[in-house]
């Protein structure tokens, strides 16, 4: 390839490489200039990306409670969450759902929701999974799914206009405790749009909207509108920071993710049972890992596939030995699983079971958890969150001494075109219980101020109900969790829409997909600033961020940030 072609090709990446990294990455000198790009932090911080794969119907997870409610319910019909409880005549009673009311749900001394055992259950509080279920017909699956929501409130007591679904009391208690905030109507955008501007094509909208593969790529890369090969936003951050320890910046327990694919880094994908290591036959000399590493020392190798195969083998072998030792000291949470002694026996999940206990739907737990289901909750997200908590702890050891980490976990199954009542109920229950378990684990380890959880999903879903489910949408709600005192939890940010109608100003296409009013970048930016990302690196990690600057304050890139999230 001649120099002109080379530069042309680099031009495709122009927006995504810093001047330093462009030289470094392109010429393979990244290692040599770490002193310029590496960030030296003295404290520890971690971000956990909670990916809800398939397009979470957040319209129902955080349903409307304000002026848009009637339109919402009339469109969503049998899938529309009720606003108030109905009496025996089917009439709405006065509001009984009050987030701050004691007789509504129980909280422990740490302000976490706890399922009261046995006695009179408030109507939809999840029941004790160990006791025989006494759900009557009113608590059938369909009725349970639309039973109601916790109406979140502002500091002055007025409703915010969004609720938290009835099946998520743990999330509600985190909101109430001031460590969880909701961001309304977020999504993938290139620049701010309105329905009119989309119609007259005076703004750019992301390519291939409503297609999973493309939108999942966009939410991972945040490079909507750019042609050519895309890279993950967290990968670009890792490319810039060039973290020197053997783990690097990015670790995934949710499988390979494009989010971590940078130009010179690709993150680590790990299994939830702890780091695996090479099994091998007994040897008196070098280990099997050493043998694999020695292959990569062959000076005769010139073929790039041969060389890279060896390189990957060698790197894996090295990390395998490092990790095998430290994992032995990782904290034990769920005794059911490990049959060992718990490290934090006084801290339990909302049912009083050890943290991260899995309720997978065996004979004991079938039809419990406040929802009728034969399948229980999918255990994988619990395993991923538990592994994340353990890794956060072992990363503090001297051998690894991590200062900055980004974790990725993934809950699949959100593509509820059909059977939404059953699937979404179980997904929401798992989110609520899982996030709560994770937060409590952080508290147990004394690290709740150091970790921030941010939700992610490729799109929300259509207002239109297709009978027993919803289809691919656009805008949806997000949530952030952090115990850091500078984080302003217990709030609803963004625009709570008043008009959700088919013909309204927020509806796009004839299925009423809601047009986002806050871009993903706008939420990520303040979180990344908290994380220690400076503005010049921020511009490469979030290239479209600048399109969201306040026109009255356009000199200041921070005017694009969602305001007030951190003090």
């Amino acid at each position: 390839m001649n120099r002109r072609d080379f530069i042309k090709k680099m031009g495709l990446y122009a927006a995504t490489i810093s001047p330093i990294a462009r030289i470094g990455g392109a010429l393979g000198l990244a290692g040599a200039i770490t002193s310029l790009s590496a960030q030296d932090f003295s404290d520890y911080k971690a971000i956990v990306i909670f990916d809800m794969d398939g397009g979470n119907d957040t319209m129902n997870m955080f349903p409307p409670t304000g002026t848009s409610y009637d339109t919402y319910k009339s469109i969503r019909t049998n899938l529309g969450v009720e606003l108030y409880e109905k009496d025996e005549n089917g009439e709405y009673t006065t509001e009984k759902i009050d987030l701050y009311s004691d007789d509504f749900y129980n909280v422990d001394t740490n302000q976490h929701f706890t399922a009261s055992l046995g006695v009179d259950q408030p109507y939809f509080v999840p029941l004790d999974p160990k006791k025989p279920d006494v759900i009557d017909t009113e608590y059938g699956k369909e009725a349970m799914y639309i039973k109601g929501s916790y109406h979140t409130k502002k500091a002055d007591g007025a409703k915010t206009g969004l609720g938290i679904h009835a099946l998520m009391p743990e999330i509600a208690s985190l909101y109430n405790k001031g460590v969880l905030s909701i961001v309304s109507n977020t999504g993938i955008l290139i620049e701010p749009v309105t329905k009119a501007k989309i119609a007259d094509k005076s703004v750019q909208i992301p390519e291939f909207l409503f297609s999973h593969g493309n939108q999942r790529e966009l939410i991972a890369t945040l490079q909507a509108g750019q042609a050519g090969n895309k890279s993950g936003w967290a990968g670009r951050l890792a490319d810039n920071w060039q973290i020197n320890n053997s783990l690097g910046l990015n670790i995934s327990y949710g499988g390979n993710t494009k989010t971590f694919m940078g130009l010179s880094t690709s993150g680590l994908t790990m299994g939830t049972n702890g780091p695996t290591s090479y099994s091998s036959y007994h040897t008196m000399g070098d280990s099997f890992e050493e043998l694999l590493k020695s292959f990569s020392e062959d000076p005769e190798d010139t073929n790039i596939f041969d060389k890279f195969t060896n390189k990957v083998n060698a790197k894996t072998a090295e990390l395998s030995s490092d990790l095998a030792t430290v994992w032995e000291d990782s904290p034990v949470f769920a005794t059911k699983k490990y049959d060992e002694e718990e490290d934090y026996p006084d801290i339990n999940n909302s049912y009083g079971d050890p943290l991260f206990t899995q309720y997978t739907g065996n004979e004991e737990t079938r039809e419990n958890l406040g929802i009728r289901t034969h399948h229980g909750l999918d255990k994988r997200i619990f395993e991923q969150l538990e592994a994340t908590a353990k890794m956060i702890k072992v990363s503090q050891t001297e051998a690894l001494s991590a200062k900055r980490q980004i974790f990725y976990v993934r809950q699949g199954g959100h593509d509820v075109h059909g059977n939404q009542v059953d699937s979404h109920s179980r997904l929401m229950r798992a989110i609520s219980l899982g996030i709560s378990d994770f937060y409590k684990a952080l508290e147990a380890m004394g690290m709740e101020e150091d970790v921030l959880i941010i939700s992610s999903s490729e799109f929300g879903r259509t207002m239109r109900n297709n009978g027993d489910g919803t289809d691919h949408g656009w805008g949806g709600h997000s949530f952030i969790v952090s115990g850091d005192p500078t984080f302003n939890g217990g709030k609803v940010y963004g625009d709570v829409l008043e008009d959700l109608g088919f013909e309204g100003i927020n509806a796009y296409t004839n299925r009423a997909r809601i047009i986002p009013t806050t871009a993903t970048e706008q939420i990520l930016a303040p979180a990344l600033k908290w994380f220690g990302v400076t503005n010049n690196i921020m511009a490469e990690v979030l290239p479209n961020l600048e399109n969201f600057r306040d026109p009255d304050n356009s000199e200041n890139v921070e005017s694009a940030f969602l305001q007030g999230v951190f003090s």
Partner: protein
Amino acid sequence: MNATMADYLTFIASSKADSTKGTAPDENYARELMQLFSIGLYKLNDDGTKILDDNDLPTPIYTQEDVSQMARVFTGWALSSTNYDKPKNAKYENIQTYMHSYIMDIRSFNGGEFHDDGNKTILGETIDAGLSAEEDMDRAIEILMANSNIGPHVCRELINRLVTSNPTPEYMSDVVSIFNDNGSGEKGDLKATIREILTHWEARDTSSDTYGKVDEFMLLTTHYLSSLNVKALPVVYYTGTHSGVTTTMEDTYWFTPETQYYYQVPLEAPSVFNFYSPEYVPNDASFSDTGLVAPEFELRTYNGLIAFSNYIHFNLAQDRFVYEHVDTVLGANPTTFTNMTDWAENKSITQTNYQGLYINTTSIYKKFSMLVDGNESLEFKNLNAGTEQQGGEKALSDNGKEAVVKLINYLDNHFTGGIMPQEYKDKLVLHLYTTASSRNVIMRQATNIVGTAIKAIIMSPSYMVIK
């Protein structure tokens, strides 16, 4: 058309647009038919290079409008049913249970009642109004076949899977011209295309440093198993988790328990984009500087690579030879088996344990025995220095060492066709001396040597990289 595909990509019961209900045709299959199965995403020249616009950026070959128009073609279809009047589909009629068939082709429902037969424009070509669902589908296929992108897109994928990740434009041109015209005026003759791909001089020339591809785990596994003459054991399959009802599957290779750990389970790709992206560029200067792709490398996560190695390790530890000659010698189980059914029953093969695949490495051990002792008796009398055969740690005799060197050559020929560089073989031989000497039981020494050797060869580039 295939019913499973129609259902998986959700155009069963996709109907023409209904403005009162606010519905529109399902666009899932329409998009993937173009993007994944025929013309791809970007405009291509016949040599596979992208056609760039004035800003030197790639241009899309289809637009969202093309997708919407194509979606209208695939309307009004239903699964066939043994009960012809009741197709699956809650959207056409509000019926929940049917006997519907995934084996029969799909059919146009109720004479095309829900088919959109208005005229359509796709990729600049028109489909006339008034055609039936079947006729529309035929026209759509004609339009795709006539498109200039189908040749380069399909040929690129075929070359990537069969030969090399980065074909030269010359190689691409030669293959595409056969695809476009097989010599008898036909476009899309796959047999002729594949013949050209495999016999082209570039497919046989390994001299370029950027030539080749790395194989994906699933294919590495089948290659390994075929090399050891794998057979399928009868597997007891539980038809329902709690029902206790079982059936026995014969002549079926049960891969799921084996391959889930490195994330490649047959028929369980995580998305329609399959197991890896065709555009994947590894994060290494030798690839990223020049934009060379290596799609299969996307699978090589930390976890996946170790899981694959461990799969080989445990698979070798459980074959018939080990069972009969190692466990037997150590007194674990004195019985030998003459047929696979007895073997399977004895091992209680079920869908969840790991022994549904039967390999037998006895011939390799007999070869090794011949190299060590000059006979096939599997005693390995001359493997060690000194006369004691059991107890204490043993160093290999000179005879044993020579046998190991020859064994490596034999295994290399068997698994890679003899292409492993001498340097690698030398390192492996030295490693095997110390692996063997750590065991004080002759049969364990032999299995350590053979097992480690096979695994090391398989993990090396000689085996994993296809050239």
